[in-house]
C-alpha cells in the first residue's frame, strides 16, 4: 500500500509508452510512401556541380501517377561511367529511392536505403536494399509489382547490359516483398508497363 503512488506513476508511464509506440507503429508506412521524394538533394553543396568535371548522362526513372497504371519515365542526370555498369546501377537506384522531383508517385518506401548494387558479366543486376524496402512496404499485388518493376525497368531501360534483376533485402534472398509476387529469382524487365510517348 505504501508504494501505491509510485506504482500508479509507473503504470501511467508504461501506458504512455505503449500508447506512443502504438501511435508510431500505426502511422508508419502507407502515408510516407505517398509523399514520394523527401528532397534530400537540398543538402548537396551548391558548388558540387561546378567542381564535378566527370561526364554526365541522362537516365529515365520509373514513377507513377494517379491517372493510369503505366510508369511515367522521369529524366535525371547521373554521373556516367562507361567502364562499369555497376557504378551507374548504384546511381540509378539511389536516384529512384529519392523519389520524383516532379510530383509523381514513388513505389519505393522512402525509408529504404541502398546497401549495394552490382551487375554481373551475364547481365544480372543484384540490388541489395535495407530491410525497410520490405518492412515498410504497404503490401498488395499491384503495389508489389509497382515496386519491383520500378527498380527492374529503371535499371534495364537505362543499362543495356542488364538483362534481369535480382532483388535482395538486407543481403538476403526473399520469397516475396510482402506476400504476393515472387522475388526469389532474377526478374526480367517488362517494358510494356512503361507509358508510351
Amino acid at each position, binding site marked *: 500500500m505504501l508504494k501505491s503512488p509510485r506504482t500508479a506513476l509507473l503504470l501511467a508511464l508504461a501506458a504512455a509508452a505503449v500508447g506512443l509506440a502504438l501511435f508510431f507503429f500505426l502511422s508508419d508506412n502507407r502515408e510516407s510512401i505517398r509523399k514520394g521524394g523527401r528532397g534530400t538533394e537540398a543538402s548537396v553543396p551548391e558548388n558540387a556541380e561546378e567542381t564535378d568535371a566527370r561526364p554526365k548522362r541522362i537516365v529515365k526513372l520509373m514513377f507513377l501517377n494517379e491517372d493510369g497504371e503505366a510508369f511515367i519515365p522521369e529524366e535525371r542526370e547521373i554521373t556516367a561511367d562507361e567502364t562499369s555498369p555497376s557504378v551507374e546501377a548504384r546511381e540509378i537506384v539511389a536516384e529512384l529511392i529519392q523519389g520524383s522531383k516532379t510530383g509523381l508517385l514513388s513505389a519505393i518506401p522512402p525509408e529504404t536505403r541502398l546497401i549495394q548494387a552490382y551487375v554481373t558479366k551475364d547481365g544480372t543486376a543484384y540490388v541489395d536494399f535495407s530491410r525497410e524496402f520490405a518492412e515498410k512496404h504497404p*503490401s*498488395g499485388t*499491384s503495389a508489389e509489382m509497382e515496386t519491383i518493376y520500378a527498380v527492374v525497368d529503371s535499371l534495364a531501360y537505362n543499362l543495356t547490359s542488364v538483362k534481369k534483376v535480382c532483388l535482395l533485402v538486407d543481403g538476403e534472398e526473399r520469397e516475396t516483398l510482402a*506476400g*504476393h509476387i*515472387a522475388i526469389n*529469382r532474377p526478374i*526480367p524487365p517488362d517494358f510494356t508497363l512503361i507509358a508510351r510517348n
Partner: protein
Amino acid sequence: MADSSVRPHIKSAAFIQAFLLVPVLAALLSVFSPLPASAAALRNIVIDPGHGGLYTGAKGKFGSLEKDITLSVSLKLRTLIERSMSYRVVMTREKDLDVSLENRAAVANNNDAQVFVSIHVNGSVRKKAHGAETFFMNVNASDEETRKLAYLENTSDQLDAKIADEDQDEVKMILWDMAQTAYVRQSSRLAEMIQQELNQALRLENRGIKQAGFKVLQGVACPAVLVEIAFISNPDEERRLSDEAFQNQVAEAIFRGLSQYLKLYPQK
C-alpha cells in the same frame, strides 16, 4: 526329408493366401461401405484465403485488413460450392492462421485439387486504382530457361557424375517450384471465365485478365487463379469490401465462373 521340403511350401502358400485376402477384403469393404460410391470419387476444389495470422496483407486507411476479407469471401464461396456442386472444398485455412505460401500449394497438390482459387484484396500506391482483377501465373523467360536447363541436366548420362546429391535435390525443388508452368493455358481459361462474371456482376468496364509471378501459384499442379476482389488502398473500395452484400456478390460471381469452367473442363 520330405517333411522339411513340404513345410516351407505350405507356409508360403498361407502367406500368398493372406496377401490375396487383403485386397479382396478391401474390395468387399468398399462395396459394402455405408458411404455412397460417389463420395469416394468426389473431387476437390481448393480455396486459398490470402494471408492470415501475423501476415495481414494489405491494410486499408480505415483499418480493414486483407487477411480478414479474404477469409470471409472464401467461406462464402465454399458455402456456394458445397450447396450446389458435387465437389468437396478444401480450405488452406479456415481461421486467422499463418500458412506458408509453399504449404498452400501443398494443400492443393496433396488433395489432388481439380482447381485452385486464391482469394486476395489488392493494394496499390495509386489511391485511384480500383476494380476486381483475376490473375494467373506469369511464366517468365528465365523460369522457362531454368526448367529446360534442369531437364537437359536430368537427361544427361553424366548426371550423377556432374551433379552432387544435394544439387540434385535443388534441381528437383526448382522443377517442383514450377509445377504451374504445365497448367498455364487452363489457368488462363479459368481466369477468363471468372473475370467475365466479375465484370458483369460488378459492372466493371471490360477488364481483361492479368499475369503475374505469384509465389503461391508457382508450385500448384492444377489450373490455378488468384482473384483480387477490389483495392483496399482505395477508400471507396475499402468501404465496400467490408460490406456483406458486396462480398456475397463477389463470391457468387467467382462461383459462376468456376462452375462454367468445370462444366467445360471436367478433367484436370
